[in-house]
C-alpha cells in the first residue's frame, strides 16, 4: 500500500479493476517506463485513496457500485451510474442553480450539469452522468470473441480504437501473432478515426463561436475523410474492419494509391483552413484564456490525451509504438480552449503525415493471423492493452476462457477526463460552457459504458 501511494504520488493511474479477490492498480511512473501493477486483496472493502489522489475518485465509486466493495474512508459516497439511488447534489449557499440536461439543445449525448452561478459566472459545476449506461461490461461476460468485438465497437464513441484495444488484449492473452501488414492497416484506421474526431471538434468549436465559414469548410474535409475510411473498410466508422488476429479487409495497390492521393489533397485543404482560422484575431480572442486547466490540476486528475497535452503533459502512447518511430507528442502549455484547439490542429497535421507514411510503405503479406485458436477449451488467460485513441489513453483488460470472454474492464479516456470540465468552467461565463465542453471532446457513452 505504501509503495502504491508513493508511485501514485509521482505517477499517473492508468486503471483500477477488480479481478476477484484482488484489486489491480495499474500505475504509470515517469515517462517511458512500463506501467507497474499493484495487487491489493479486497473481499468486502478496501482502503480509499480518493481523497489523497482524486484521480481514483470515480474508479472507487465504480467499484462500490459494480462489485459492492466499500471504499473505507471515502467521504460522502455517491452513486456514479446507478440512478435508482438518491443523489445529493452539492449546494453552494446563496447561489442560484442552473440545471442543464440530460436532453440538450444540440445533437449530443445525454448528461446532466448542475451549475451554481453568481450572475453569469459559474462558481461551481457538478456533473452527473450515467444516462448512457447500457451495462456493456456485463454483456461481455460469456460472449464469444465475435460478439465481444461487436460490443467493443459499440462501447464508446471511437469504434476503431475500442476494437483495436480489445483485439490487442485478446491477442496478448492468447499469444496470437498479428501479421505486419495488418498491424499497419490497423494504424491507418486508427489515424483516420483520430482525424475524423479532431476535425469534428474543431468544426464544432468554430460553430460555437459563430465562425460558420470555417465550420463548413472543416466539416467538408471531415465528410470527405470519412468517405476514405469507408472506402477502405466498407463502413463509415470502420466497424467490422478489425478481427482478432488482424483485419477483415485488404486493399489492392490501386485503392492504396487513390486513397493516399485523396488524403494528401484533404491534408492540404485542412491545413489551409485550419491554419488561416487560427490566425484570425476574432478566433484567437474567443478561444484564449477560456476554460483553463493548470498542469498541476491535470496531474492531480490524471488527465490523458489532447486535454493533458494542452497542459504541457507530453504523454502519448504512440511514443511506445514501434510503427510510429520517431514520434514526438504535440504539446502546448496554455491549458485553455485555444491550447486544446492547437493540439487538435497539430495532431491533424501529424496524423495526415503518418497516414501518408503508412500508406506509402505497406508491408506485403497476410492481413490475418489465420491458423487454429491457440487456447484449449476452458484454458484461462488474462491480459491488458492500451491504445492512444483520439481522446486519449484507452485501456482494456480481458479474462478469457477458451474462446469466450469471461470478464472485461474498459477504461475510456473520457472516464478520466470528465472531471477536468468541472474545474475548467470555474469563473467562466455560463454561455462559454458549450465551447469549453466541446474543447474537451468527451464521450458520454464511453464513460457510462
Amino acid at each position, binding site marked *: 500500500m505504501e509503495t502504491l501511494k508513493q508511485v501514485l504520488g509521482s505517477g499517473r493511474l492508468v486503471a483500477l479493476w477488480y479481478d476477484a479477490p484482488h484489486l489491480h492498480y495499474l500505475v504509470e511512473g515517469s515517462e517511458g517506463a512500463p506501467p507497474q501493477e499493484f495487487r491489493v486483496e479486497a473481499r468486502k472493502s478496501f482502503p480509499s485513496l480518493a481523497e489523497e489522489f482524486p484521480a481514483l475518485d470515480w474508479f472507487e465509486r465504480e467499484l462500490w457500485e459494480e462489485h459492492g466493495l466499500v471504499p473505507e474512508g471515502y467521504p460522502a459516497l455517491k452513486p456514479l451510474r446507478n440512478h435508482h439511488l438518491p443523489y445529493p447534489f452539492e449546494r453552494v449557499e446563496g447561489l442560484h442553480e442552473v440545471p442543464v440536461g440530460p436532453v440538450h439543445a444540440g445533437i*449530443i449525448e445525454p448528461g446532466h450539469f448542475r451549475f451554481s452561478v453568481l450572475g453569469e459566472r459559474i462558481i461551481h459545476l457538478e456533473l452527473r452522468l450515467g*444516462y448512457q449506461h*447500457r451495462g456493456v461490461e456485463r454483456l461481455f461476460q460469456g460472449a464469444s470473441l465475435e*460478439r465481444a468485438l461487436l460490443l467493443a465497437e459499440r462501447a464508446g464513441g471511437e469504434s476503431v480504437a475500442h476494437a483495436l484495444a480489445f483485439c490487442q488484449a485478446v491477442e496478448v492473452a492468447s499469444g496470437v501473432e498479428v501479421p505486419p501488414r495488418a498491424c499497419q492497416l490497423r494504424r491507418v484506421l486508427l489515424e483516420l478515426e483520430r482525424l475524423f474526431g479532431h476535425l469534428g471538434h474543431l468544426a464544432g468549436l468554430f460553430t460555437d463561436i459563430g465562425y460558420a465559414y470555417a465550420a463548413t469548410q472543416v466539416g*467538408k474535409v471531415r*465528410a470527405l475523410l470519412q468517405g476514405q475510411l469507408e472506402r477502405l473498410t466498407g463502413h463509415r466508422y470502420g466497424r467490422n474492419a478489425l478481427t482478432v488476429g488482424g483485419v477483415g479487409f485488404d486493399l489492392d495497390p490501386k485503392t492504396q494509391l487513390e486513397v493516399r492521393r485523396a488524403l494528401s489533397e484533404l491534408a492540404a485543404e485542412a491545413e489551409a483552413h485550419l491554419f488561416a482560422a487560427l490566425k484570425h484575431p476574432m478566433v484567437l480572442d474567443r478561444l484564449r484564456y477560456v476554460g483553463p486547466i493548470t498542469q498541476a490540476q491535470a496531474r492531480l486528475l490524471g488527465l490523458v490525451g489532447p486535454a493533458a497535452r494542452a497542459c504541457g503533459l507530453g504523454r502519448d502512447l504512440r511514443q511506445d509504438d514501434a510503427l510510429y518511430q520517431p514520434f514526438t507528442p504535440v504539446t502546448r502549455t496554455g491549458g485553455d480552449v485555444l491550447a486544446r484547439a492547437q493540439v487538435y490542429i497539430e495532431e491533424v497535421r501529424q496524423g495526415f503525415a503518418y497516414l501518408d507514411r503508412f500508406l506509402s510503405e505497406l508491408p506485403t503479406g497476410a492481413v490475418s493471423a489465420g491458423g487454429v485458436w491457440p487456447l484449449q477449451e476452458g484454458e484461462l488467460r488474462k491480459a491488458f492493452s492500451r491504445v492512444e485513441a483520439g481522446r486519449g489513453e484507452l485501456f482494456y483488460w480481458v479474462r478469457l476462457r477458451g474462446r469466450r470472454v469471461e470478464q472485461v474492464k474498459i477504461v475510456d479516456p473520457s472516464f478520466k477526463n470528465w472531471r477536468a470540465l468541472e474545474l475548467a468552467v470555474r469563473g467562466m461565463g455560463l454561455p462559454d460552457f458549450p465551447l469549453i465542453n466541446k474543447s474537451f471532446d468527451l464521450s458520454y457513452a464511453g464513460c457510462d459504458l
Partner: protein
Amino acid sequence: MNSLWQTLRTGLLTRSLKKLFALPAWAPGWPVLRPEGLSRAVRRELLELCPSAAFAEEGDEFRLDLAKCVLCGRCFRAHPQAVGELRTLEVAVARREDLVQRVDLATGSFVDPGPPPPTRAELHLPTLAFREVSAGNTGLDDTEVALAGNPFHDMSRFGFTVVASPRHADALLVSGPVSQNMREALLRTYEATPEPKGVVAVGNEAISGEVFAESPQVAGGVDKVLPVDVYVPGSPARPASILHGLLLLSGQARQALVGGRVVQEGRERARTAPSEAGVRKDG
C-alpha cells in the same frame, strides 16, 4: 476576400437524392434471404455464423431481422446461394415487420405481411422540426443525424430543421436502445412535444436494441417506451437513410421495403421516388 474566393471555388456540394441513396460500391449491402438456397445445413451455419443473431428459426419459419444485422457481410459472402445482397439506402419503414424477412420453410416462399400502412397524414407537412434525443446510444447515430444536415445531405432543403426544445418540435428523433436512466427523460421530452407529434427510431439500437437487447439496463428499443412512426435501420443508420425516414414521415417519399425486401412494385417506387423529390426540390 479569401474566404469568398474559396466559397465560390468550393461550389455546390449538395447531392441529389438519387446520388445520396446510391450505396458506394465498397460498402456491403443488406442481406436478403433466397428461400431456394435455405437447406437445413445452410440454415444451421447461418444461425451460427452471424455474430449479431440476426437469423432465427422457429418451427417452420426462418427469419432475418434487418434491425439486428450489423452489416458485416459474413452471411452473403459465405452462402451466396442462400443470402443475396440488397443494395439500397432507402430502408426506412413505418412498420416494424417490414424490417423482418420471413420465409415459410414448408412452402419455400416469403411470408407477405401485406401492404405497408401509410404514415400519419397530420404529419405530412411542408416543414418539420425535430428534436433529437439520444437514449443510450454509442454516439454514432447522433453524429449521423448531425451529418444529415451537412452540405452534402442538406436536409433543410426538404424543410427539415433540428430545434433546441421539444416544445418547438413536430417530431422526436430517438437513437439508442433507451437506457433505464434515460427512460424518464425521454418520456418527459415526448410529453413536452405538442400534438401532433411523430417519433423516428434512428438506428438498429433504437429499433431492436441490437447487441444491447439482452441487457437489463436498457428497454431494448424505442417502441417499448413510445409509439414509433418511422424506423430507420442501420448500425449506425446512415444519413441518407435518416433522410429517407424523414421524407417518409413527412409524406415526401414512399416506403421501399416490404417484409424486409424490395418487392417488384416497390422496386419501381424506389426508382421513381427520389427523382420525383429530387426534381421538385433541386430543380
